[in-house]
């Protein structure tokens, strides 16, 4: 019995679909124009969202400078809107020292690696073969920073604890800088000069995935050496990097580090932290919160076109119902139920919307990725918005198709047969 009902329903749906298609085929121009409306409506949403997504993922990649499950501890927050007073508050915090990094390394048992890093200087690097602009970043690091930042050594070796302890004059080169200074061979084992000081190149890092201008244009030296030479310039405030063992223990690790730091820096129980903990995710979340209003605004503005298209569909469906009054009357007279008529017209609306939606999605993705091509970043397909766009399309079809379908279904068969 149930199977039979299912078969009947399927047959009804099939019939409705075929009739809908026939109706569309009968009025090609009309269908094409209605379709064009939906295409433009969906295109408007998808093109905007794809372009936004391209820009957003570009910025997020810039923000993701850290390796897996890693967070940083800093004196300054990444983004602050507190004005000069807030600035003063942060300014008065004690600097994070190398001593603190050692304490943290010993006491934070949940951390896989605790590193310290400091941007020391920007200057000119030179090798016997080439000279750079004075915009090369000198980065003071501990060996753990390689793991925390997800840096991989391409040639040579990484930094050793002995290099840091001894304050040796050695350096790791960023990929771009190595290519610039040693265009014809390996940099490892050679000597470079930065800011008048010679450093032996012990390794070259792999190119980073980030697309930014200043990426890979740096050299890293042992932090002890850096502090000796440049420490007083920035009052020796370091950034601490902590890598948790795995994602499962990440939150525990953050809490443990917070506790250890509060004790080490003698923060009273009721006082707020005198340091900022941030990670890729927290930075990205902050960025997303900042741009939330813009994104919502763009979504709303771009979906207005789809609303207009929906109204167009409703209008054309109403016309279609009026024109086919007699057909509806005949179908009712030979036994079609209200439900069948309703299905037929709603299906017609949905088919229109879905076909238009699919074309709109394709065009929108192509159009939106023009921005990716323009900014020379990898193209994106906003899968969630594609799905959402198609769902919204169906909803538009159902919502704006229902009233005409209802009107058609409730026509009096006798009147509609008599209708001319």
């Amino acid at each position, binding site marked *: 019995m149930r199977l039979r009902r299912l078969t009947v329903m399927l047959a009804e749906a099939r019939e409705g679909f075929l009739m809908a298609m026939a109706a569309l085929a009968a009025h090609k121009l*009309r269908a094409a124009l209605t379709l064009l409306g939906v295409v*433009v409506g969906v295109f408007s949403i998808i093109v905007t969202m794809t372009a936004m997504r391209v820009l957003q993922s570009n910025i997020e990649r810039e923000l993701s400078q850290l390796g897996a499950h890693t967070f940083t501890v800093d004196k300054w927050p990444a983004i602050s809107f507190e004005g*000069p*007073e807030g600035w003063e508050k942060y300014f008065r915090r004690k600097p994070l020292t190398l001593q603190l990094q050692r304490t943290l390394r010993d006491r934070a048992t949940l951390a896989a690696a605790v590193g310290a890093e400091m941007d020391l200087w920007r200057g000119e690097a030179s090798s016997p073969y080439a000279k750079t602009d004075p915009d090369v970043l000198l980065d003071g690091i501990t060996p753990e920073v390689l793991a925390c930042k997800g840096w991989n050594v391409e040639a040579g070796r990484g930094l050793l604890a002995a290099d840091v302890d001894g304050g040796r004059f050695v350096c790791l080169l960023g990929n771009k800088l190595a290519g610039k200074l040693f265009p014809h061979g390996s940099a490892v084992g050679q000597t470079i000069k930065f800011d008048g000081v010679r450093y032996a190149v012990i390794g070259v890092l792999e190119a980073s995935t980030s697309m930014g201008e200043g990426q890979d244009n740096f050299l890293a030296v042992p932090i002890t050496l850096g502090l000796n030479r440049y420490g007083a310039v920035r009052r020796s405030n370091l950034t601490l990097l902590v890598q948790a063992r795995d994602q499962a223990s990440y939150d525990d690790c953050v809490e443990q580090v917070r506790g250890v730091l509060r004790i080490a820096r003698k923060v009273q129980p009721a006082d707020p932290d005198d340091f900022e903990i941030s990670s890729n995710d927290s930075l990205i979340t902050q960025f997303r919160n900042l741009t939330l209003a813009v994104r919502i605004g763009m979504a709303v*503005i771009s979906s207005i076109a789809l609303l207009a298209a929906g109204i167009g569909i409703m209008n*054309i469906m109403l*016309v279609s119902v009026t024109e086919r009054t007699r057909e509806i009357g005949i179908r009712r007279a030979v036994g079609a139920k209200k439900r069948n008529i309703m299905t037929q017209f709603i299906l017609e609306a949905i088919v229109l919307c879905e076909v238009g939606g699919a074309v709109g999605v394709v065009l929108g993705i192509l159009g939106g990725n023009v921005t990716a091509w323009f900014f020379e970043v990898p193209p994106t397909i906003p899968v969630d918005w594609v799905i959402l766009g198609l769902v919204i399309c169906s909803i538009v079809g159902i919502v704006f198709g229902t009233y005409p379908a209802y009107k058609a279904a409730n026509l009096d068969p006798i009147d509609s047969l008599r209708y001319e």
Partner: protein
Amino acid sequence: MNLLTQLRKRERLCFKWIRIGHIEVCEGHRISWAAIRANKLRATLTTLGIVIGIVTVTLMGTAIQGLNRAFLESVSAIGTDVLYIQKHPWFHDEPWWKLIKRREIYLPDGRSFIRNANPAWHIALQSAGIRTLRHGKNVASGVVLIGNTEEGAITDGLSLKAGRYFTASEVEGSRPVCVLGADIARSFFPNGDAIGSKLRIDDTSFEVIGVLEKRGKFLGLENLDNTAHIPVTRLARGFVFWPGIRIVVRVGGLSALEDSKEEVRGVMRKVRRLAPGEADDFSVNSTEALISAFNRMGRIIAGVGLFITGLSLFVGGIGIMNIMFVSVTERTREIGIRKAVGAKRRAILIQFLIEAATICLIGGLIGLAITAAATLIISRFFPVTMSVPLAVLALLVSALTGVIAGFLPAWRAARMNPVDALRAE
């Protein structure tokens, strides 16, 4: 004689044409109205499509216009005939490491500039810092403390509500006197007894000698009234790390701005003792650069915004076209009869064009009304106003949408063969 008759004939013909045209338009109008009234729901929905399009486009236009106006007002409040000699340019393409090696501009440079400058110019030497002000129990922190010289009131276009600006001798002697911005004065001295009172900036006592008029916010962001002015020489004493000054020159008269810029540059090169051929180690900035940078950005925003909102108007237009095609198909017989009794192609064309344009114009009017209401609400948070040109433009755009979208259907109707049209069912 012959010529005259010909002219008269042509004149008569001309009048006839106008009369016929007039009749055709009137008739077309009447028929369109009847058609619109006959299908109320259909007309309403079509209009709604246009209303949505017009509202979004007009709102976007209003917002962009508001942004532009706010910016221009802010900029002209500072003054457009003012040049700023600073270490850094406001906008530059040069790499930063070339710029940071430039020499800082200090007070002696400024004094030397004034000695060498054109006496027609008003010149001020300025610097700024952020300080905390105290008066009794009142504390205002984060106040922008501006060090200025006696002509600063002229170069910055300041007007005083009470008291006076400081004098040359007060600047010379680095006297502890200050002129307060409107917000600070109101919060410290609500009774208006500011002049002659003492207040403390950081830990030094200053006498209030003047209060400025309210100036509002720059770009709706930076409050220009949360400031206090003191002699720049006094500010120089309070700084541990002296960050240099900027020389502000009001040249008077926009027409000579480019020439004056060169003259200012020449004087400054002399002050800096730069040899011919040597590059400038300072920049002469003006608000022009600011305006052109803003315009560049504004054009991008306007382009993107109008494109996205234009899409909804486009969809509305497609709706009109579609419905007009339906209308033409439905009224095939009517068209056939009209043609059979002598209506010209033009008459049919005009009839349908008027129908489309009428729907669009009504949509435009309703859209404008909605936009005006929305603008009133938005203007509480954001400086926007509806302007008459924009409203006219919106109506024109809506009428044009109707004409463009209606043309193809109308053309199809006009070109129907009357015989076929009469036979149509």
